[in-house]
């Protein structure tokens, strides 16, 4: 046979036998063909792709929650001048005559009919966000005692009762799409802010705990021996610490806020990935391509990062959506029990708690439940699609 052998013994075929079609596309963004293939494969998973879009739309909208649900107007036209209360705080004296005894120079409360009258007097007008309440706005003129029903669900009997009692008439009351909670705050506004804080908390906790967990697992699996033995024993002791009790004790000492809670949950969340990554590295470190890399003189750190990590990533990514949804539900659970975010913060857990405390007010429990359920389902659908996209053997299926 000729020394100059042919290029391929068999024509390139896929696992199923069809010829490989390599799409050559030149987009504006220079994406490597590998990532392009992953993206294509991700898109092919319709459920994951649609979920990603829905989730991104919801998340981006919630990032701009101040423009959707706020008790400050987006725009105020007053006395020929423009005001942007969303961005700037104006003292109430801005809108009144000098020396008006009813004005104290404090931040203007635009929901106060008095301020609204002042603005209207000077040919002013107000542009409100679609939902004119923030997460902590108390409704001042409810049609019923708190928690009050969604406005569209008010029956004639309810209206009659409102008229008899000391409440706002049905037509005059604020419109609450999903009613109010027991402290008189609009449920929709709280859901929007609560969604944002849950997702942000979950994302940060997931990213931080994954970084720590993957690093710890990688070191244990790669070096093995005593490193592994000691670390494993430490983790066994660590995981047997009762998390909830520690949390109770710590929240008595520290004021529970966003970052304090993040820190406390992080203390325990990082362990979840260690075992998995460790197993992947233990398995992987004896592969021939790792030997080949050693034979090339590649350093340990580079072998771990370039050769072993990408292979451990699929197993890690498989778990990521579950860790993310676990983080979200951990925060929700703590809030539900009352050990979470400080009182007054928008929190889905607190809403669920109120739903439990007021079984007659179905709108509280149901809206909390559906928000949490939809959020977690979307995250898991996305996670599944990402996982499949990263699997090279699935690329062409």
């Amino acid at each position, binding site marked *: *046979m*000729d*020394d*100059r*052998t*042919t*290029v*391929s*013994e*068999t024509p*390139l075929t*896929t*696992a*199923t*036998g*069809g010829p*490989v079609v*390599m799409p050559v596309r030149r987009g504006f963004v220079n994406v*490597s*063909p*590998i990532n392009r293939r992953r993206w294509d494969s991700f898109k092919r998973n319709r459920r994951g792709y649609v979920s990603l879009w829905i989730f991104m739309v919801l998340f981006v909208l919630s990032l701009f929650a101040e423009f959707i649900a706020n008790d400050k107007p987006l725009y105020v036209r007053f006395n020929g001048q423009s005001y942007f209360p969303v961005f700037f705080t104006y003292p109430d004296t801005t809108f009144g005559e000098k020396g008006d005894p009813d004005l104290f120079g404090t931040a203007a409360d635009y929901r106060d009919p008095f301020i609204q009258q002042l603005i209207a007097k000077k040919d002013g007008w107000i542009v409100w966000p679609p939902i004119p309440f923030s997460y902590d706005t108390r409704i001042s003129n409810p049609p019923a005692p708190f928690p009050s029903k969604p406005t569209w669900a008010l029956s004639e009997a309810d209206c009659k009762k409102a008229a008899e009692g000391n409440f706002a008439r049905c037509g005059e009351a604020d419109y609450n799409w999903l009613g109010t909670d027991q402290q008189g705050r609009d449920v929709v506004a709280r859901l929007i802010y609560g969604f944002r804080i849950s997702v942000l908390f979950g994302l940060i906790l997931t990213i931080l705990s994954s970084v720590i967990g993957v690093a710890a697992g990688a070191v244990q699996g790669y070096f093995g021996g005593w490193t592994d033995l000691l670390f494993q024993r430490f983790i066994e002791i660590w995981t047997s610490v009762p998390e909830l009790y520690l949390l109770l004790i710590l929240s008595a000492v520290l004021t529970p806020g966003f970052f304090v809670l993040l820190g406390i949950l992080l203390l325990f969340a990082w362990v979840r990935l260690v075992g998995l990554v460790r197993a992947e590295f233990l398995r992987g470190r004896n*592969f*021939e*391509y790792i*030997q*080949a*890399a*050693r*034979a*090339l*003189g*590649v*350093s340990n750190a*580079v072998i771990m990062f*370039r*050769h072993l990590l*990408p*292979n451990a*990533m699929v197993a890690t990514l498989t778990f990521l959506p579950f860790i993310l949804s676990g983080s979200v539900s951990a925060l929700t659970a703590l809030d539900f029990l009352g050990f979470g975010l400080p009182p007054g913060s928008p929190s889905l857990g607190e809403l669920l708690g109120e739903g439990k405390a007021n079984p007659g007010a179905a709108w509280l429990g149901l809206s909390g439940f559906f928000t949490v359920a939809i959020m977690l389902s979307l995250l898991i659908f996305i996670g599944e699609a990402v996982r499949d996209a990263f699997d*090279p*053997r699935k690329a062409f*299926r």
Partner: protein
Amino acid sequence: MPMSDATPLLSVRDLSVTFHQGGKQTCAVDRISFDIRKGETVALVGESGSGKSCAALSVMKLLPYPSAQHPCGQVIFKGQDLVPLPEAKMRVVRGDDISIIFQEPMTSLNPLHTIEKQITEILELHRGITGPAARARVIELLTQVGIPEPETRLKSYPHQLSGGQRQRVMIALALANEPDLLIADEPTTALDVTVQAQILKLLKDLQSRLGMAMLFITHDLGIVRKVADHVCVMTKGKIVEQGPVEQVYTNPQHAYTQQLLAAEPKKDPAPLKPDRPIMMQTDNLKVWFPVKRGILRHTVGHIKAVDGVSIELRKGETLGVVGESGSGKTTLGLAILRLISSDGPIVFMGNQLQSLRFKAMRPFRHNMQIVFQDPYGSLSPRMSVEDIVEEGLRVHHPKMPREEREQRVISALTEVGLEPSTRHRYPHEFSGGQRQRIAMARAAVLQPTFVVLDEPTSALDMLIQSQICALLRKLQRDHDLTYMFISHDLKVVAALASRLIVMRHGKVVEEGAAAELFAAPKTDYTRALFAAAFNLETASTGVVSD
């Protein structure tokens, strides 16, 4: 239905197999026809992916239905068409009338059950034999397949047996119900040459004693010649030629058969170069793995993987290292490259390597490279070909500009006969031979002077083996490379090695110039090894392992 010698036992007519997956249809077997008469051996030969295993499995209907389908064809066994037969009736045929032996004895036995339990199960299922009768039958079967002292082996688990013994147990399992047809799917591919010869002899003996027919699937033409009466050559799902073995071998008609028969690696070893400088030298090199016991983990003994090996290799030569599996060949190769720790001096181009730490070794790694056996395991599945090949350049020439690095990768890929435009793809898109070329490009891109080749051709088909051999030879001539070629495949070693060492149990049994050694082996062990490899003959017991 009475059987005469004229009517075939099994008659496959126009059989096709297609696989449906994700809307795509692939034809794995394309209208094949062949007959097997009682007591006859028919061999299906072809490269991997030619559909030979698929054809054999479809006789037993063991394919993953319904994603696999038979759009046309008949499998007539004893006058009955098996293709439309329902699964429940098929189960009666399987294991009773037709049985099968698979390639990998490691995974085809259940590791959690004893040998006795596994054989008894099939006796009970088809014949209803239980209790002492079953045990007697199991002992009889184990004696038949040549397991020594079968009574003591009954309670053994598969891991307590050697590869050859496991394959013997598999054969006992297949023979338990005295089938009329035995399908052997590459039964010796995973075994050592010496064990392979024993197993082939056993199959042949059993066949003539029991008068069963055999469908033998293999990629090795040497084996076909030894065992088969009738041969069918398959490629790309079709049988391109069939006929009596002698006729096909002496007078092949189809171009593919001719190519296959001529595929034996060309014997053209690198010459001995006694006047060139010494490249690699070891003196009494030892790799001992301690065996630790007890709570305090004190060392009670050693497994001597490499036990006092001295080699001397001059520039431009090829040192062949041969021996059965477990003889320490690969360990020796890894120890020389200092990938595992060892004792004893290793001198590379006049430099003492043994005492160097990992970082101090790095400058030498540039000159010494390794190509591994398994082209599937030696390439990171998540790195593109370009990343794989350029890795060494990143380590040894960290300041090299990207364009130059890319240029070096392209020229290395071209040199090993790969299209450079494929460098952005992933290893799984390449065939075994192409992957082995990628592994060679990874070594070649650094322009090394010394390369350890650890069974680089063992996982490849015959045709590709000879292509890879030719490529190795070309690279050696072009770059004046020194090879250490580790293999159990003596045909390939004979084609390339200028110098040879024969290893057994970590020690060198015999060494010398390859030509002399092949012509006149001195020890019984080497003679047995050569006889098994070149003529598929077994040696008297005790010389080689079983």
